[in-house]
């Protein structure tokens, strides 16, 4: 049953995970991505750089985050439920692990400014905070729809010194924000550092972001063994671009642990009603990578819907497309409704308000628990839901 592979062999030198990945960027960006890859490889192999990064993860981000046993949820589901608490990380989500790593890399490379995109605003807040901490100005592109539904995060980014630029064209969500960040980067590839927020984009980003997010799964693997005396049956995470999921999954790939990614099923399975890219997508090229996409038969990328801004994206990280294709991970969907129910349940039973994104993982885990009674489940609680008050209000009023 278990798929055996040397998982560290991916990506290959050309940035491919099997047939997915690569580097589909404008020629203007080629020198920049080649240099980024070289500098990143050097930095990640440099003990001084990694010590500085780990030191800041500990003393500034607050790592390791706890792996919390969830007793009342366990009872309600008839399972043994553990939560990897990225909601307790500085700025409120896993995004900071990557943003801090890239900000340190930007400083090491002598970048004059940082540009980023954001969906839910969590990557934007994390980048703003990390850039403030390392002392580089930053600009964040954010879809106008998301500016509205994640308003608290816009204010936070501004307080942290970032310039937030709303993107009104295209789908006015994460895809349009990435389009615009790429356009910005291409005008100044030599002194601007593009701090990409998920395991998407051209090589080396899917690899680089995974390396910075792996801390999540490494900690969880140690913690579960210490606290529960063994590995879990399954690890579950929500998948937008897929960074919290890849961070949690990757250190478990070489075990027998089942791996379950949860995608947003939105309001139904019609094209445009969801953002279930692995479950429903087809191979295509967007934002620098060959991956799975939600697209029409003519290769036009379609708009998506999800109640969560951070999962509302028509592409997905190429490594997820690969894990799905080789059968090492399973990807399922939950609807807006199921996610919002799970969010309420976690509030009620565990006293934790998760991000709407993370709530998808809970809904998916609950379904798994039903068909696997007694299972030991580790859920990635990728972020906290303080930012989601506008979405929760709109949901109640619908």
């Amino acid at each position, binding site marked *: 049953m278990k798929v055996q592979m040397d998982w560290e062999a991916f990506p290959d030198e*050309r940035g491919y995970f099997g047939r997915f990945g*690569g*580097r*589909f*960027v*404008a*020629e*203007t960006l*080629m*020198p*920049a991505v080649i240099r980024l890859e070289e500098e990143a490889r050097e930095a990640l192999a440099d003990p001084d750089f990694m010590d500085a990064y780990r030191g800041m993860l500990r003393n500034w981000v607050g790592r390791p985050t706890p792996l919390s046993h969830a007793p009342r949820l366990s009872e309600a589901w008839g399972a043994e439920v553990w939560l990897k608490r990225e909601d307790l990380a500085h700025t409120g989500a896993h995004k900071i692990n990557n943003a801090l790593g890239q900000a340190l890399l930007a400083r090491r490379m002598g970048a004059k400014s940082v540009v980023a995109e954001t969906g839910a605003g969590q990557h934007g807040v994390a980048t703003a905070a990390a850039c403030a901490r390392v002392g580089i100005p930053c600009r964040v592109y954010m879809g106008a729809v998301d500016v509205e539904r994640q308003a608290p995060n816009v204010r936070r980014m501004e307080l942290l010194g970032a310039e937030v630029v709303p993107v009104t*064209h*295209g789908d006015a969500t994460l*895809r349009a924000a990435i*389009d615009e960040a*790429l*356009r910005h980067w*291409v*005008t*100044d*590839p*030599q002194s601007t550092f593009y701090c990409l927020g998920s395991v998407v984009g051209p090589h080396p980003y899917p690899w680089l972001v995974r390396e910075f997010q792996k801390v999540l799964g490494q900690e969880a693997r140690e913690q579960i063994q210490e606290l529960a005396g063994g590995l879990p049956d399954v690890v579950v995470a929500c998948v937008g671009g897929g960074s919290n999921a890849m961070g949690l999954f990757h250190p478990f790939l070489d075990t027998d642990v089942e791996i379950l990614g949860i995608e947003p099923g939105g309001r139904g399975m019609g094209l445009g009603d969801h953002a279930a890219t692995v479950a429903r997508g087809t*191979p*295509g*090229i*967007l*934002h*620098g990578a*060959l991956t799975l*996409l939600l*697209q029409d*038969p*003519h*290769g*036009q*990328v*379609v708009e998506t819907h999800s109640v969560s801004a951070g999962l509302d994206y028509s592409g997905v990280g190429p490594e997820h497309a690969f894990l799905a294709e080789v059968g090492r991970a399973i990807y399922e969907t939950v609807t807006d409704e199921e996610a919002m129910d799970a969010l309420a349940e976690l509030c009620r039973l565990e006293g934790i308000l998760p991000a709407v994104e993370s709530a998808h993982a809970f809904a998916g885990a609950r379904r798994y628990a039903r068909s696997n009674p007694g299972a030991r489940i580790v859920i990635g609680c990728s972020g906290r839901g303080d930012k989601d008050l506008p979405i929760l209000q709109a949901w109640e009023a619908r």
Partner: protein
Amino acid sequence: MNSPARALSHAIRHPKVPGRPALMPYLMAGLHGLDGFAERLLEVSDVADAIELGVPFSDPTADGPVIQAAARRALEQGVTLSWILQTLRGLPRAPGCPIVLMSYANPLHAYGYERLLAEAEACHIAGFILPDIPWEESGEFRDLARDHGLAVISLVTPVTPPERLRMLTADPEGGFAYAVTVTGITGGSMDARQVNGYLDRVRGVSRVPVCAGFGIRTAEHVRNLTGHADGAIVGSALIEAVDSGLSEKEFLRDLREKYLPQPPQSTNSVR
């Protein structure tokens, strides 16, 4: 010898108005409606030296606001790659200049590279401009194109390192080299004084003619390229002109004729 790629190089080296940069307008396919597009294209082909025909895409990350809006409009009218190829195949006569298809990767990927390249010559397509398929990713497409004598145009930019520039412009079957004049997206305005040195550098190594593109808006821009580039590609400014009521043909004539009466500037003073 007479491959479409070679014919494309020839058309650029021997423009309709000798001694001046070849003119290559960028047309977004079907922008002004599906009906009448074929006639429009043919009309432009009689004035232009080559046509860059744009396939609209939902996420044109190399383009500024004007071409983004054009892509959106074309998509709203229902333009697809299949429709474009069908229209080209059914042209009532051969166009008066070679056509180069400009497309982001995904519409081509969805159509299928093999099928596209097998059909291209019958569609009067001499080559392809692929703004998000860099050299490293273009192997499969390039091999198929070569089998059909079609050009895969290399883009080079002001930040392309010298060895890479040499590699990108070494293939004599490459049609032409597309020298991007600005570090950025389409729709800006180029600074002639800044680009001529760069264009000379590209021309110094390239085994195919060099066409400058991005930010070329006026007859003066085109005039300044004389002696530094073999051709000028005009996109956003053309779309804007057509939106303000000119025809493509009129705008292209203006680009040529407005500079014709003026004496060419000495290349030294431009540098």
